[in-house]
């Protein structure tokens, strides 16, 4: 049993087990022990099973595809090629070209030629035929929902190192959070009095606990997220994308009696829908032009009409192996855009179809040079990115994530820091080979803006979870920026490490909230003595997020990922001096991150208690909550480390999509000079050292400033706030983004709606009313006829019948004996009459 059949089985099972848990809790939840207490065990057991299965798959994967160490000193050849960016095979048109003609893939191809690189589900994969940097990947379909024409909808898988890694990360964090939540949510085991809901009649809401429902939604969420990760085509991704969204809606609105919670849930859902609308446009562009949504190559059309050939997937269409995996506008998009020319060729009379098709095929490269289809590729990329913007809370659509903190803290930790919001980043990473430099630049700028805005807002937030929420948005900006500047590994590396320490931070904050029953940091302080485990693990999380470490020696996980982002940004800035601002945004962001994270830690744990009422109540959380903290803290420390050739970065390097090891050059929207440097260039000594030192310095500065203001009290925060009054107000009001959206979108929409309503009432209703009045008048005449003539006849008949009946009923006396007498009389009379009339013997 080969890996190509084992992996889909293992991961598919890991994917479906939470669904089973969901169904079980849905139907039997309230019957699982008192108040559904055992639902937690069911859900935890399910996700634990998933974790075990994922780890098994992971071990199998490592056995078959051992990762290799990244050779930092390997870049010489590339540098030489990179020196002349204009010299590529596709350089003629200058639109999109390969920077290095053909990468020496030895460094990044872990398995060399003997590894079954592309053992696709149909078994046709032949690794020996691919000398290029195609990563080991397996794809296939479990079930084909529909197949007809060019459309093939299926439930399938696309498994590469990234998939396996994400499975492990998601299931591990989810398991920790399930365990944590089974302690955190125990209030829901009995009647709950929600002090945040004021009823109209006065008093607070009393409601039964919803313990099983929480785990039910959590299980469904895990199922959706894993489905999103394993999905083999964009349609399936979209389905699970939406499922993730609806789970988020369930979980944010878990306390749906609170107006704030239900509003936040709706807000999150609607904002996500806006992004999904862009994604739909991207999907339509891809499908309309290319006719497939599968990532990988798949079997040809089944049935008699099938040609038996493999159908190319998105990746091989955009980066065909024949083209050295270099990015080019696919044929489908070219002919789609050049539809007028195609129609001219195909429409000529007397030309057979195959001749026309051959001519079209021959002329396609020329059209591609002429620039047909580039916009289509841009629209597709930006469209897909729109969905990621919504899901990952990037700049224009970032407003929902902080509000989503209305959900229970485990939800915040799992959904809104570690997994769901990471889905956007994951999708950009998965879709990376298809993205053109222009799209990448858009992504980078969106990431930068997000990173900066969120970081500044986090500076002044006082709600502990909101600080973390803005921090999340900011870190997601980091990732997007990293991907946008070409740092595929960097961005996804940060995604993984961030998942660990951000969930750790959220769980710690949950522990604090659980202890203090408040979110307001101004009421905390001095909790270090009361809850040491929480405090120290949170400190680990803070250090990890700011990228603490001894430069060039060792560091926490964030140290490695953030450094690589910084390095790639610096590399990009060097290649594109016009976009140096991106590098400065990253550097400034690092400073801000360090400041607000330690502001948080100091305000919460250090110093003296500010509110004794809170401090007296505080206590360390139960073991069931502390254990996940410790586990996650350990991972937050070690996640970035590499043991020989084994490390997350190496694994990601192994998963790098074919052809993306080289850089890209030339945009048609943002200028020809746009260059996206290859990622391994950032391992260059000068860039690397500069980036590391910058990161260290900014982080240290941030920590020091925070300590000065909140630990040592050298500078009064109030004074600083007063000193820059307008700026503070601006930040405290979150850049007035919500108000802006309200003014720009909500108010005009309402206005249009009112106009439409007035039109409805004033014009359309009038017309309808008039028609109705006319009809009523006619009906009145008809009714008169009915009542007078028709009813008169009927009533007369009835009256006649009635009076006859009344007269006849006297015959029915109800006297049995009288009836008997009548019968006898009748018989005698009948016999006598018959005897006289017939004149025959009665016995005849």
């Amino acid at each position: 049993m080969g890996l190509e059949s084992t992996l889909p089985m293992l991961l598919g099972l890991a994917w479906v087990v939470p669904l089973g848990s969901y169904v079980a809790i849905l139907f039997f939840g309230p019957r699982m022990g008192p108040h559904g207490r055992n639902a937690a065990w069911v859900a935890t057991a399910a996700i634990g099973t998933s974790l075990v299965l994922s780890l098994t798959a992971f071990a199998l994967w490592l056995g078959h595809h051992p990762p290799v160490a990244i050779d930092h000193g390997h870049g010489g050849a590339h540098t030489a090629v990179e020196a002349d960016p204009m010299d590529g095979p596709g350089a003629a048109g200058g639109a999109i070209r390969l920077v290095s003609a053909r990468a020496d893939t030895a460094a990044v191809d872990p398995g060399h030629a003997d590894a079954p690189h592309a053992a696709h589900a149909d078994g046709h994969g032949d690794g020996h035929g691919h000398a290029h940097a195609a990563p080991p990947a397996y794809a296939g379909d479990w079930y084909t929902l529909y197949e007809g024409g060019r459309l093939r909808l299926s439930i399938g898988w696309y498994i590469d190192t990234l998939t396996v890694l994400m499975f492990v990360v998601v299931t591990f964090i989810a398991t920790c959070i399930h365990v944590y939540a089974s302690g955190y949510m125990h209030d829901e085991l009995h009647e709950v009095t929600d002090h945040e809901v004021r009823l109209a009649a006065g008093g607070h809401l009393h409601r039964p606990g919803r313990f099983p429902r929480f785990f039910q939604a959590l299980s469904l969420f895990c199922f959706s997220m894993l489905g999103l990760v394993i999905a083999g085509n964009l349609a399936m991704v979209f389905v699970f994308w939406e499922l993730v969204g609806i789970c988020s809606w369930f979980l944010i609105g878990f306390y749906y009696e609170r107006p704030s919670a239900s509003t936040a849930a709706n807000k999150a859902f609607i904002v996500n829908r806006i992004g999904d609308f862009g994604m739909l446009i991207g999907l339509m562009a891809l499908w309309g032009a290319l006719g497939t949504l599968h990532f990988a190559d798949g079997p040809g059309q089944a049935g008699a009409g099938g040609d038996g050939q493999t159908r190319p997937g998105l990746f091989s269409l955009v980066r065909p192996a024949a083209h050295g995996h270099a990015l080019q506008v696919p044929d489908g998009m070219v002919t789609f855009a050049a539809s007028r020319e195609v129609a001219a060729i195909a429409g000529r009379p007397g030309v057979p179809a195959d001749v026309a098709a051959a001519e079209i095929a021959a002329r396609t490269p020329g059209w591609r040079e002429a620039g047909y289809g580039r916009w289509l590729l841009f629209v597709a990329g930006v469209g897909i990115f729109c969905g990621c913007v919504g899901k990952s809370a990037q700049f224009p659509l970032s407003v929902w994530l902080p509000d989503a903190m209305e959900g229970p803290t485990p939800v915040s930790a799992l959904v809104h820091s570690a997994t769901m919001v990471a889905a956007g980043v994951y999708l950009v990473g998965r879709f990376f080979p298809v993205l053109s430099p222009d799209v990448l630049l858009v992504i980078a700028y969106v990431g930068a803006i997000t990173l900066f805005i969120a970081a500044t807002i986090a500076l002044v937030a006082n709600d502990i979870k909101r600080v973390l929420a803005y921090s999340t948005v900011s870190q997601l900006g980091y990732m997007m920026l990293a991907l946008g500047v070409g740092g595929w590994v960097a961005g996804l590396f940060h995604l993984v490490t961030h998942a660990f320490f951000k969930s750790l931070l959220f769980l710690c904050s949950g522990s604090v909230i659980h202890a203090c029953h408040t979110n307001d940091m101004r009421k905390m302080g001095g909790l270090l003595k009361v809850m040491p485990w929480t405090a120290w693990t949170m400190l680990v999380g803070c250090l990890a997020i700011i990228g603490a470490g001894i430069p060039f020696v060792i560091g926490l996980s964030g140290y490695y990922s953030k450094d690589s982002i910084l390095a790639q940004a610096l590399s990009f800035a060097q290649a594109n001096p016009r976009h140096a601002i991106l590098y400065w945004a990253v550097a400034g962001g690092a400073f801000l991150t360090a400041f607000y994270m330690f502001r948080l830690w100091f305000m919460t744990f250090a110093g003296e208690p500010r509110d004794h009422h809170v401090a007296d109540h505080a206590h360390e959380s139960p073991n069931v909550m502390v254990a996940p903290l410790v586990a996650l803290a350990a991972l937050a420390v070690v996640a970035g480390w590499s043991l020989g050739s084994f490390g997350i970065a190496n694994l990601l390097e192994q998963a790098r999509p074919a052809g993306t090891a080289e850089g890209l050059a030339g945009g048609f929207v943002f200028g020809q000079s746009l260059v996206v440097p290859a990622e391994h260039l950032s391992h260059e000594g000068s860039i690397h050292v500069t980036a590391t030192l910058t990161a260290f310095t900014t982080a240290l500065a941030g920590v020091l400033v925070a300590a000065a203001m909140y630990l040592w009290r050298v500078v009064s925060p109030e004074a600083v706030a007063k000193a820059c009054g307008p700026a503070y107000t601006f930040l405290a009001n979150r850049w007035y983004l919500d108000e802006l959206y309200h003014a720009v979108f909500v108010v005009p929409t309402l206005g249009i709606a009112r106009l439409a309503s007035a039109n409805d009432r004033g014009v359309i209703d009038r017309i309808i009313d008039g028609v109705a009045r006319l009809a009523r008048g006619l009906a009145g005449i008809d009714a008169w006829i009915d009542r007078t003539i028709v009813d008169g006849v009927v009533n007369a008949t009835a009256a006649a019948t009635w009076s006859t009946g009344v007269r006849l009923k006297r015959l029915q006396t109800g006297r049995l004996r009288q009836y008997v007498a009548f019968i006898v009389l009748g018989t005698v009379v009948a016999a006598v009459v018959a005897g006289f009339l017939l004149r025959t013997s009665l016995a005849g």
Partner: protein
Amino acid sequence: MTAMIAPVAWVCPVFGLGPLGHPPGVSHYLVVGAILFVCGVVCMATKRNALGVLMGIELVLNGANVNFVAFASPWLQADGARSIGLDGQAIAVFVIVLAAAEAAVALAITLNFYNNHATVDVDRADDLKG
């Protein structure tokens, strides 16, 4: 003495006089059946007690049965081939069985009526009168 016997003798097969002065044939049985039948009818018409009415019904059925049995026997009439044979006896058996069934149901109804009206007077059972 003779004056007393004369009307009896007129209908008596034993004395060989009158229309029935022969050995008993079908007609004799028919006469008995007719008397039973009429007695039953009169019983039904005069008894106010529901059970009396029931007994009248039984008498009526018996009168009919006598006729059936008489017509069934081939040796009670001159032309034996005109008898209805076993059919008559079978019908009589069925009538007896059905009469038992009818009596059971009628008694149940009577008991029900008694439970509801505390009487078995059929004249009081006129809830449905017009």
